[in-house]
């Protein structure tokens, strides 16, 4: 079975399917008639098959060796995206929890606790020792009220975040405006402008100290002022008095006869209703971290959130109830330990009395 080079190449072409045309026809005829060529084709095919098998085995061994390290983990692109997303969510959650801690309990880091303590000390300087407010109130800031933001129209202007000495000067001017009698000296004495500055310095120094740490945002005290409270004492007929106390529409349904008061009596009542300066109230202006608008009032100290400190406030007390006038609108202030929204006085009779 001696095959020359030419025949070898022809057989190769035949087996690979590249032999075409006349060449193919001629070869097929030879294959039919010539036993030697048939043997040569068979032998060549067997050897080619063996070469292919050997090469196949060689490549498979190569792949097996290269991929035998089962430690190589293959991750599909989908999984890669999913893992990256999960990592991003976890990272965001960690950052969110660091910025908005759920409380000052166990989850707080020592750095956070230290900064909170310093802030507490700063507030001690702001509040008088006999303050009725609890210390913890400052910690329970308006962050928890972020969901509910009451709509109080046109009360807020951009509050100054930092209290400067100019602000203290403004406070003095403010007090002078609202003073009536000789009480203003006492009130001015109570204005803690210096204290505020000191407190802010403390806060800023605290923030400087903890600059490298995570800063926990909280409500910011802008300024403290004192205002006189005028007591409105009325000696009206029972029906009118009732209508003032009960903020109910029933009062307006009283018969005309009952409501009719002689002009003389009204004059006397008006004379008696002239507001009398009764006491002073300390007002703190706070900038809520969540832009909360409302108040917190314990009887001696009023904390206003989201109210412009340059607004002129007027306090009146009627039947042991405190009313404040902010920008021409009267609001009713209720004693409470929690944050409250400002409730606008809507009773026309009561408004008339408060406006007198």
């Amino acid at each position, binding site marked *: 079975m001696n095959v020359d080079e030419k025949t070898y190449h022809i057989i190769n072409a035949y087996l690979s399917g590249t032999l075409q045309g006349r060449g193919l026809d001629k070869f097929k005829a030879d294959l039919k008639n010539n036993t030697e060529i048939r043997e040569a084709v068979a032998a060549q095919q067997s050897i080619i098959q063996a070469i292919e098998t050997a*090469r196949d085995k060689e490549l498979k061994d190569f792949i097996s060796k290269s991929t035998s390290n089962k430690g190589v983990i293959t991750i599909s692109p989908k999984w890669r995206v999913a893992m990256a997303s999960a990592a991003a969510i976890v990272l965001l959650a960690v950052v969110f929890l660091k910025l908005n801690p759920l409380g000052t309990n166990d989850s707080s880091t020592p750095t956070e606790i230290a900064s909170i303590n310093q802030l507490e000390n700063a507030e001690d300087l702001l509040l008088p020792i006999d303050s009725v407010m609890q210390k913890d109130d400052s910690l329970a800031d308006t962050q928890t009220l972020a969901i509910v933001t009451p709509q109080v129209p046109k009360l807020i202007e951009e509050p100054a975040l930092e209290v400067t000495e100019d602000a203290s000067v403004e406070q003095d001017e403010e007090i002078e405006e609202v003073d009536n009698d000789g009480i203003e000296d006492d009130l001015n004495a109570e204005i803690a402008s210096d204290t505020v500055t000191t407190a802010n310095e403390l806060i800023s120094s605290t923030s400087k100290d903890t600059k490298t740490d995570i800063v926990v945002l909280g409500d910011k005290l802008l300024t403290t002022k004192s205002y006189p409270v005028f007591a409105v004492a009325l000696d009206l007929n029972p029906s009118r008095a009732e209508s003032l106390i009960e903020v109910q529409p029933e009062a307006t349904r009283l018969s005309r006869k009952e409501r009719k008061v002689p002009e003389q009596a009204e004059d006397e009542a008006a004379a008696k209703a002239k507001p009398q300066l009764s006491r002073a109230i300390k007002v703190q202006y706070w900038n809520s971290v969540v832009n909360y608008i409302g108040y917190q009032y314990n009887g001696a100290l009023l904390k206003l959130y989201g109210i412009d400190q340059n607004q002129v406030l007027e306090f009146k007390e009627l039947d042991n109830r405190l009313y404040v006038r902010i920008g021409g609108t009267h609001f009713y202030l209720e004693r409470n330990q929690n944050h409250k929204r400002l409730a606008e006085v809507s009773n026309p009779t009561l408004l008339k009395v408060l406006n007198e």
Partner: protein
Amino acid sequence: MFGIGEKADHTVLEKINQGDEQMLIYMYKQHYTMVKNFILKNSGDEDAVDDILQDTVIAVWKNANKTNFLLRSKLSTYIMAIAKNLWYKELKKKTKFKLVDETQKMDLGSEEMNLNMDQSIIIKMVQEMDETCRRLLSYFYFDGFSTKLIADKLNFANADTVKSKKYQCFKKLQSSVLNKYKKEDLI
């Protein structure tokens, strides 16, 4: 996949055409999870995954080196299609519902022809050939490399040198085989 970035399909094919065997590993690793999920969902096991994927990437390797090869889809789709076909074939074998391909019967390289000879011995002979001859014959018959590429890879002067060298190597191997077997054994 760790350690291996994704390559564009045309880059992979180019490298295959240059005879870069690392592309086999790349394709294997790149499509391992995909093929594994498919086979495990279709009554297969881990060993089957290895076998099928090896056969798949080798089939891609051989096809990509054919002169008329044209990739009409994404490479991953093509690989997956081959893997699926191979696995379905394997399942058919296992369930003994093997379809007999008539063309295979007609083929001169059918199993019947080699009943009288041990193919593994010829394979061993191929493996024991000198490196250049073995690689030359493998590149030509199995990989389907062009004579020009073979010349480049094996440092031959030109394609004609490859042709004549191929004949010499083949004749050498044939002589060894014929020394071992009668020519009737090969028919």
